[in-house]
């Protein structure tokens, strides 16, 4: 092989490697920019879960007095059912396990319910002081909200 042919061969090898390197650099750049942008605009999951869980002690299981007034932060034990919970917060439109699921526990009343795709893989939990109406009287209780993120 003469010198000219050797030079052309080396050049072809050089450009073949270069194309792979350039492609790699482009893909890596897109990945780096993407992850940086995601980190800039990310909302902490715990904040979103807290916003979602507001409804559990304010409006999902409301205690309605004799005048027809619903009281926030007062839970009616007869309303504290999985049927009412899943009507108040449904995961069906969000592919079930791909969104937040919750388990609600009333400590003193010893009652526990959960959403339809909850599989006991809690990431974090939150506690709220509430009043519970058991049909006769109001009592203080603690509502523990267990949060399962997308799995």
């Amino acid at each position: 092989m003469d010198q000219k042919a050797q030079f052309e061969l080396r050049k072809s090898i050089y450009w073949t490697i270069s194309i792979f390197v350039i492609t790699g650099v482009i893909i890596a750049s897109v990945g780096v920019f993407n992850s940086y942008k995601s980190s800039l605009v990310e909302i902490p999951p715990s904040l979103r879960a807290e916003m979602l869980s507001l409804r559990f002690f304010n409006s999902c299981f409301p205690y309605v007095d004799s005048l027809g007034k619903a009281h926030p932060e007062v839970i009616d034990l007869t309303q504290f059912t999985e049927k009412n919970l899943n009507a108040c917060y449904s995961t069906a439109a969000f592919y079930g396990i791909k969104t937040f699921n919750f388990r609600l526990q009333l400590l003193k009343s010893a009652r526990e319910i959960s959403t339809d795709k909850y599989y006991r893989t809690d990431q974090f939990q939150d506690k709220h002081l509430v009043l519970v109406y058991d049909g006769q009287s109001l009592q203080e209780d603690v509502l523990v909200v267990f949060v399962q993120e997308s799995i």
Partner: protein
Amino acid sequence: MDQKGSSILVLLIEIIVVVSTGFFLSNIAVAYADSEYASRIKLVEDSRIMAEGLLGMPGDALVSYQNPANTSIVVFSQGKVSVFKKGDPEGAKLHRLFYVPPGYTTTGAAEQAVWLCLEKKSQNILLRECLPGEMPSESLAGRSGKPSAAVE
């Protein structure tokens, strides 16, 4: 083509490849560094979380929010918030879904609004541009120089 002509052609192709790669990379960098797009993501995420918060709040409420992407259009439909610019193709529009309990409605829209207001009245949540007097005081808004929100 003689040997000299051939090598000049190869050199030209090399230059074109290098220049076009550089141009392509810088275009990607500019597109990703575009703060407007990041602001639109922030707006659509914040709008969803505010709607979810309002859906769980008792009574009526008004949230005023300094729009980080005030050249965009924001639309609330039932269980969905969309952010886009006029003329954007469907693929470029940002959408976020959220669950609306039975009996509640979420509606409204605002175009190029500096302040957005989310108003909860009974079981309806309406997105609209804030009216004069509904924004927090200028001192509160300008103190950090960053988007802010207030609940009344």
